[in-house]
Structure formats: C-alpha cells, structure tokens
C-alpha cells in the first residue's frame, strides 16, 4: 500500500469538513480526482510568471509560455509512450476529444452503408457523439451487447464486426462497473477487420501504465481532471497518418495556415485541432500532474487501487442487503452496488452526511443501466489517498443507512 498519510498531506482539500462537520472521505474519484499542491502551484505559477498567449507573440514572455505549453505536450507523449509529439492534441477533455473524432473524422469517412460499433458499457461521451455522427452521415449505429455481468464478450465483438464497420468505440475501463477491457486484443480483432478503434481512456490513465504504441489503438482520449490535473484540459491522441487527413471540427485563430476571402487552409496537426486560445495554464499544470503521478509510480498506484478494491469488495459481499454489480475479476478501483429496497440517491445522501462522497445514479451510462435492468447504482471509486479505514467507514455508514431507512 502507498503511504496514505503522506499523500493526503499533499492535498489541501483533506483539511476541509462537510456541513455536518465530518472530514472528507472522498470515494468519487471516477468523477474527478482531488488536486495536489504541486498542481495548484503550477497553475498559479503560470499566471504569475508566464502568462502570455502562445504561438503568437514574439517577445520573451510569449516564448516562455509557448515553451511551457509545448513541454507539457512532450510530457503527455512520454506518459502515453507515444512516438510523435504531433499525435498529442490538447482539448477540454475526454468529451471534446471524442467529439473531435466523431465529427472531424466522421464527417469525411462515414457514409450511408457504413457502420459504427459502440459497446453498451460506454459513457455517454463515447456513445452519443457516434449516434449523432451516424445520424448526420447515414451510417448505421450499432450497440454491442454485453455479458450478463456487464463485461465485454470478445466472441460477440467478432460477430458484430462486419465488412462495413468503420469504427469501434470502446472504453478502456468502465466508469460504472470498473471492468477492464483487453484493449490490445480488441484492437487486433478490429484491425483484422479493417476497423479503426477509438479508446476512451478517461478511467485508465490514472490506474495503470499505458503504452499506446503497444495498444495500437487509433484514437485515445482522456481528461486531465481525472488524473489530479485541472478541469478544462484533456488530450486526444490520434495516429499521425489519421490526424494528417482529419478535418478540424472547430475553426478560428492559431489553427489556420492561410486565410483567403473564399478559402482557408489549415496547419498540420496538432495545431490544426487547437483552434483559439487553448487552456494553457491548465495544460501546463496537467504536465505537472503527470510528473506527480510518475513520482509515485503507476505500478504502485495500480496495486493500491486493487488492494482497496479487493478489500471493499470483500467487506461489501459480507454486508447484509448489499448487491454488488459486475465481477471482481479484471477490475479497476471502481465498484457499483445497490442496497436492497433503498434507492441509490437516498444511500448517497446518508453517506454524504457521514462525510463520505460517493456517486449515485446512472453515471452517464444509461445504455448499461438498461442492459443490467436497473435505474442506477451507488458507486465508490478509489484513489491514492484512500485507505482501508475509509472502506470500514463506508460499511458502517451503510449499516446506518439501513437503520434510518428501515
């Protein structure tokens, strides 16, 4: 296990209390992670010492600002083990990254008769943009059914791919059930079929070491705020040859090559996809967040998540009237469950009073809820600052919940 007390000291939020005076037990890390001092300082430092618009000014400060921004791009590339810097595009987050592909790539490459396949466990961010791209283009939108426990079935995947499937959109880790999809294998299957793969990495970046060259996926998206970075910045990775021929879905400053009265040409990637003033400070602070993660080490982080998850799974299994969803195998630090006859929102409100922050509802995965035949779940998701004691507090609060709602 990581030294949690040492780590917690690096996160100012843990010195706060809730309205009921309880210290924070933060188990909603799949929604967003807390921010360490170094990231906050990086943000403030940028505005205090580097603030200038990038790629425009020819004075010293603008040059430094541009360098800091581009240096952060380099950190992301290293973090994802990506070969070419221009394969890393800064954007607002996972949602925008996927929209960029669904619309930018979809606009040119989807036609009537084509198919896009998404899995039934996708976050709405990797579902709705494809649904809409299909509506616009006349392509067919297909949803891959799951096993009864909500996990992906590779045999069904093989069957669902047809000669017309242009794109497969799949999440690396389910934000609701925590199941980890074997992306490398999935990509092989898809590529054998001539299908590109868009991977939603929102939940995997902060869980395990990634090597996009090994995964060989065509596009990959993640959000900075889920890996201790600021909200409002994220990354799209795309293979160089795909980005080179992809249309930008936003136009404006910074991304143009030449603007004529009737016709405009665009810069090469990555700048083609970064229209307007980007969130420079946030991008720089994201680089700091990645340094922070590297400092701890993803191998230890993954081990920490798994130990917490296993402990919580075991304790929840032996707690009366708790029904766990998903399966304990091949899973990240995310667990969904329900308490018999008590709505997830009521559970979350009572846990909230005890200072325990969890998420309740459909977690932006309504197709998955439909598949499982439920309306919502209570979700706990772990991070580096959580410990076994917090799991015990969760269990105690669930017992209290039963008493209050009896």
């Amino acid at each position, binding site marked *: 296990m990581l030294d949690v007390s040492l780590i917690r000291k690096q996160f100012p939020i843990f010195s706060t209390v809730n*309205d*009921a005076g309880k210290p924070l037990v933060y188990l909603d890390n799949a929604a967003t992670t807390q921010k360490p001092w170094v990231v906050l300082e990086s943000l403030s430092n940028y505005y205090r010492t580097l603030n200038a618009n990038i790629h425009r000014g020819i004075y010293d400060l603008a040059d430094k600002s541009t360098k800091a921004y581009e240096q952060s791009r380099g950190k992301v590339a290293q973090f994802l083990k990506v070969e070419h810097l221009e394969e890393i595009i800064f954007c607002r987050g996972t949602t925008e990254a996927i929209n960029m592909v669904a619309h930018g790539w979809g606009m040119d490459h989807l036609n009537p008769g084509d198919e896009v396949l998404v899995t039934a466990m996708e976050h709405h961010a990797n579902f709705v943009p494809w649904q809409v791209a299909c509506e616009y283009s006349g392509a067919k939108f297909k949803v891959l059914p799951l096993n009864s426990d909500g996990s992906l079935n590779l045999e069904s995947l093989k069957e669902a791919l047809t000669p017309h499937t242009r794109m497969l959109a799949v999440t690396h880790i389910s934000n609701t059930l925590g199941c980890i999809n074997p992306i490398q294998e999935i990509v092989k299957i898809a590529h054998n079929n001539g299908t590109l793969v868009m991977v939603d990495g929102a939940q995997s970046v902060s869980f395990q070491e990634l090597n996009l060259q090994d995964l060989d996926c065509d596009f990959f998206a993640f959000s900075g705020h889920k890996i201790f970075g600021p909200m409002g910045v994220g990354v799209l990775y795309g293979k160089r040859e795909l980005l080179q021929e992809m249309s930008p879905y936003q136009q404006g400053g910074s991304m143009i090559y030449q603007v004529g009265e009737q016709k405009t040409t665009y810069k090469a990637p990555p700048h083609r996809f970064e229209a307007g003033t980007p969130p420079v400070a946030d991008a720089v602070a994201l680089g700091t967040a990645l340094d922070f993660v590297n400092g701890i080490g993803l191998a230890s982080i993954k081990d920490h998540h798994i130990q917490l998850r296993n402990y919580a799974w075991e304790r929840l299994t032996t707690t009366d009237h708790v029904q766990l969803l998903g399966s304990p195998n091949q899973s990240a630090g995310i667990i969904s469950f329900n308490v018999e006859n*008590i*709505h*997830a*929102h*009521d559970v979350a*409100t*009572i846990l*909230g*009073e*005890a200072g325990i922050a969890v998420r*309740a*509802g*459909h977690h932006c995965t*309504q197709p998955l*809820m439909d598949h499982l035949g439920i*309306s*919502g779940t209570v979700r706990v998701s772990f991070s580096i600052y959580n410990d076994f004691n917090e799991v015990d507090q969760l269990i105690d609060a669930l017992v*209290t919940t039963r008493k*209050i*709602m009896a």
Partner: protein
Amino acid sequence: MRPELKALYQKILLDRAKSTLGFEKGPEAQHIIEAYNPVCGDQFKLFLDLDTDKVDHASYHGYGCAISKASTSLLIESIQGKNLDECRKLIDFFKQCMSGMATNPGEIYQALALSKEFPGRQQCAVLSWQAFENFIDGL
C-alpha cells in the same frame, strides 16, 4: 449526523414512499405525464383522467428515491377529485411549503421541504409536482 437527516427520512415520509396507494399503471388514461430527472434517471408517469375540469382519476407508476416517491404519492392523492383551480391552489401551497413560507404546512410537507438541506435533493421533492404544473399550464 445533523438532526435534519432524521427529520427528512422520518416515518411519515418513508411510509408514504412505501405506500402502494395510487401506485398503478394507467395505460388507457386520457393524459400520461412524464416526470423525469435526467440527473439521476428517476422517472414517473402520472396517469390522469379529467372530467371537464375535474381530476376524475389519478394514479402513478415508475421508480425513484424515497423522496420523489413520497412526493409523487402525495401529489396523486391530493389532486384526486379536485378541479383545476383547486389543483393550482394546491401547487401554490406545495411551493410555499418547499420554500418554508407556508403557515401550516403539515408534517409530510415539512419533511419534503427539508430536502433542500441536502445537495441535489430538492429536485426529487418537486419532480412530479413540476411536471403536473407544466401539464396544467399547457391545458
């Protein structure tokens, strides 16, 4: 825990949430009103038969938390047999209760009003009432 929590989830509200009174599908009803909360996915259908301007029969079905269920059940029971004017007055009264302005709110309304003390939960209390109000306004 603050006393507000126990006061919110008090017996009268929990009993109401568990009550099956008026909990009945009415696919043949004259009017089917959707009360849906996109944040949590809670969803009720209100089934109404109107006799000119009087609620002849009302029932509801769907799923939601204890607060939204209790509140919907209360709505359905309260509008039974009322004319639209009386329904409007009832909605006004409900709103006053929710904002703590009513002089004599009654226990269950008071419990529901406490939902505003808890992040994101007031929407659960007003969900079906809002849908019903929109329906009446649109008549």
